């Protein structure tokens, strides 16, 4: 049953062939068995999960209508607000924070009758590429316990890869869905900016953040996106139906895209590890065999994406994280001398190193005298990058590139060198700057048995076609069917 996709599981539950409570029980069994090592979850909600599952089962047997995720166990990254449990962002500053409201995506999951089994680990405030910046939990890669699961959505990706849930939601500001999905050998989609409501997503870089699915199959990814996509009146930056219609992502999913033109950016990919490049070349061959035309293009400004990103994201973060001050909620220092110390000590005590570093960097980039040189310059570079994409999409349906220059690196390898850590986001960041959708799908393994991801990028609001293109690859390869060795322990 583990290998049922979320969509298949839902169908069996609705057909009365499998009970949701069974599926949930199985998931919790695995969590108990494997999560002490994997560390995917910050918190789990067994009682609530069974309650929902049993309600779904009851409604199914009573012949009542149930939602499109009926009875499916899902995990959400712990930066999405829930009225149950705490919403911690893997930070000490929010360790005991209880949200009085649910994020819009959480409401949508609940309305679709999904079973939320728990809240998954992440880099503190989504700042990181390895989940090592979590202040609350250590997550390892299910394929190799000495390696990172990627980040910042390392918890959700590890949970999906480890079969500790059927599907999950992560968030992606500079690659935080796609990179851990790639490291963990699962599917991760960052939707177009504005496609999914950010209301209730604890903000990191507001103009870049986007929630998206992490799943085992493209099929499930389309299913999940259909649940969470769409306009939300509580998020002014979520796009309305008139501006960009939300199609049925599953409807034509299995229809290959005709006259498919795929752009490859060889010069940009040069920096990637040899095995990663080889996997990419093989993936391109798969597409060629399916009739696609692969054209080599240049995108001259992509090399500047990291520089622009680390200015824009940190500038926004420095402002977004100003609210964690120990006054209205969250950690407060014990004996402040005055109200200014409530701020400076509470924040110093409860923010981790990387969060402090980014707040500092962003504050500096916005401060008087430096605004033009850093922040404004970065916004201009951002425009150049967006134009590169606009030019490219004039010639092709999609652009492929690696998800990361390497496969999952060792725990501790980059943690003391922030710049090296930042550079590992080289392939994912541009999509956030340009606001376009990008997907990461499994496309092979390196000689250490670690998954390699293939990234496909599409024009804004082109998720339906992007998913079809990804599905074409998936339907003709078996990479997604491989499960991490945890599996053997179970059997």
């Amino acid at each position, binding site marked *: 049953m583990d290998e049922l996709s979320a969509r298949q599981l839902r169908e069996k539950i609705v057909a009365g062939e499998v009970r949701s409570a069974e599926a949930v029980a199985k998931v919790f069994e695995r969590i108990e068995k494997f999560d002490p090592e994997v560390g995917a979850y910050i918190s789990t909600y067994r009682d609530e999960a069974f309650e929902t599952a049993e309600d779904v089962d009851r409604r199914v047997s009573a012949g009542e209508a149930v939602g499109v995720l009926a009875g499916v166990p899902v995990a959400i990254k712990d*930066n*999405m*607000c829930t009225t149950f449990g705490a*919403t911690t*962002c893997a930070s000490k500053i*929010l360790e005991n*924070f209880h*949200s*009085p*409201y649910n*994020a819009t995506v959480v409401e949508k999951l609940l309305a679709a009758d999904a079973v939320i089994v728990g809240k998954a680990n992440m880099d503190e405030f989504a700042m990181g590429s390895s989940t090592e910046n979590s202040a609350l939990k250590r997550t390892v890669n299910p394929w190799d316990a000495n390696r990172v699961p990627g980040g910042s959505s390392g918890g959700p990706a590890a949970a999906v890869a480890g079969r500790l849930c059927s599907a999950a939601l992560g968030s992606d500001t500079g690659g935080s869905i796609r990179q851990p999905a790639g490291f963990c050998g699962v599917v991760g989609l960052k939707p177009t900016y504005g496609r999914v409501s*950010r*209301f*209730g*997503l*604890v*903000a990191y*870089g*507001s*103009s870049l953040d986007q929630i998206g699915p992490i799943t085992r199959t493209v099929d499930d990814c389309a299913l999940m996106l259909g649940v969470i996509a769409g306009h939300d*009146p*509580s*998020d*002014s*930056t979520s796009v309305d139906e008139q501006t960009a219609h939300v199609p049925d992502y599953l409807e034509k999913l299995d229809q290959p895209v005709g006259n498919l033109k795929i752009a490859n950016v060889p010069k940009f990919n040069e920096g990637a590890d040899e095995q990663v490049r080889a996997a990419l070349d093989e993936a391109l061959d798969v597409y060629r065999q399916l009739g696609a035309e692969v054209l080599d293009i240049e995108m001259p400004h992509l090399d500047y994406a990291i520089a622009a990103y680390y200015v824009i994201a940190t*500038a*926004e973060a*420095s*402002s977004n994280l*100003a*609210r964690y*001050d120990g*006054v*209205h*909620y969250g950690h407060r220092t014990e004996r402040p001398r005055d*109200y*200014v110390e409530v*701020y400076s000590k509470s924040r110093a005590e409860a923010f981790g190193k990387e969060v402090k570093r980014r707040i500092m960097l962003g*504050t500096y980039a*916005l*401060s*008087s005298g430096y*605004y033009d040189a850093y*922040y404004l310059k970065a916004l201009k570079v951002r425009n150049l990058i967006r134009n590169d994409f606009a030019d490219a999409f004039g010639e092709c349906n999609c652009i492929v590139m690696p998800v990361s220059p390497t496969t999952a690196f060792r725990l501790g390898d980059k943690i003391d060198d922030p710049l090296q850590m930042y550079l590992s986001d080289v392939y994912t960041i541009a999509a956030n700057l340009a606001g376009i959708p990008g997907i990461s799908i499994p496309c092979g393994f390196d000689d250490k048995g670690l998954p390699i991801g293939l990234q496909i990028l599409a024009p804004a609001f082109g998720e339906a076609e992007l998913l079809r293109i990804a599905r074409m690859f998936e339907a003709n390869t078996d990479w997604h069917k491989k499960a991490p060795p945890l599996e053997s322990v179970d059997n």
Partner: protein
Amino acid sequence: MEDLAYKVMVGLEIHVQLCTRTKMFCGCALGFGEDANSRVCPVCLGMPGVLPVMNKEAVEYAVLAALALNCEIAEFTKWDRKSYYYPDLPKNYQISQYDLPLGANGFIEIASGSGQTKRIRITRAHLEEDAGKNLHTAGDFSQVDLNRTGTPLLEIVTEPDMSSAAEVRALAVELQRMVRYLGVSEADMQKGHMRFEPNINLVVTKDGAEYKTPIVEVKNLNSFRALERSVDFEIGRQLGEFAETGETMQMGNKSTRGWDDAKEVTVLQREKEEAHDYRYFPEPDLVPVELKGRWLKDVRAGLCELPLKKQMRFVSEYGLSEYDAGVLTAERSTAEFFDEAVKAGGDAKRVCNVLTQVGLKLANEKDCSIVELGIESEGVAQLCGMVEAGDISASASAQVFEQMAETGKKPDVLARELNLIQKSDAGELEAIVNKVLAENAQAVEDVAGGGKKSKKARGFLLGQVMQKTEGQANPKVVSEILDSKLG
């Protein structure tokens, strides 16, 4: 101390609270005096994950006010975050407008005496959210109430064009009247709906050279009186200080002083303008506002004749005194009611008298406005016409007016019911006059004698006729009959 020639320069930074139903970026109701922290939600509490959504009404109110201030309206405007840490600011940034305010380069006309006006330039007008309140009265700690957090504010910045405390007051009063006319703010200073922060300095002439004194910003002004007094106080204080120290305006020596209402002095709060670094940047959670086309036209349609213009028209068109015109235009509804009554045929001065002497008094007693008395403007015009025609006396009109408010009946009906119609029947009155003349031969003789005595006697005879008719004779008609009889 030598006598120094000087000019006063005052600019104002003004915050006007808009009277929308809800806050700028969330659905919490605006209120005053509710329980602390009861009118708050995750959005205005700045909780993790929340996002702001613009209140359309607030934007429209702000644009309307900016239009009335003759501002250029930005076709494209956006929001910015202004960062500073303070307990009443839960996000530790304020959503405001920085480089693209919705209105700029406007002006407001203020009365400068004897029918003249003076133009005060408006630098900019922008929309922003208010902070909450920190209270310091509880002991050795402070309390924070966030009910006010997120209230829509229109910030207006003027050029330093005011050259006296009286002009500062005139602008404040004019602006209050204006925003009330437009219906965009209740503009109650006591409730903090309008907050004025004057920036004051002097240009002193000494030995043929001009010196600018350091700029002082004054805070804590809760009334027009305080605003005016503080400016006057500062003029004197700065002049004295200049004479003593000779200090002039430099970069960074702007100071902030608070107004002590009891002592009527300003007290130094901050010596030097701290180098604030607000780190403004575009608010990524909101999209731009494009103020053009049909929408702007619809908003513009909300404009009305502004109070000062109306006041001046009442003087020039209707011949009212400045004072009366000021009284009638204090509130838009009263001014419009007056206009309607005149258009319905009432004599302007008489309508003015009825409204200012009877109407406003009555409205005041009932704690409502004139229009809320339930009287039609046509009724007032009719009432004035009856006085004009001599059907009722001027003093009786007050009684009729009150009854109109009481009963909703028409003035002619009420005058009859109350027996206030004056006798104007010449035949009937002639008989009475004849009787009076016959009974008062001495007085008739005195009239004929001429001189001082004659006038007095004639008055006496008129009085007798009025007495016999129990005051219901039309004095004008009686006078005419007397004239014809006495020659």
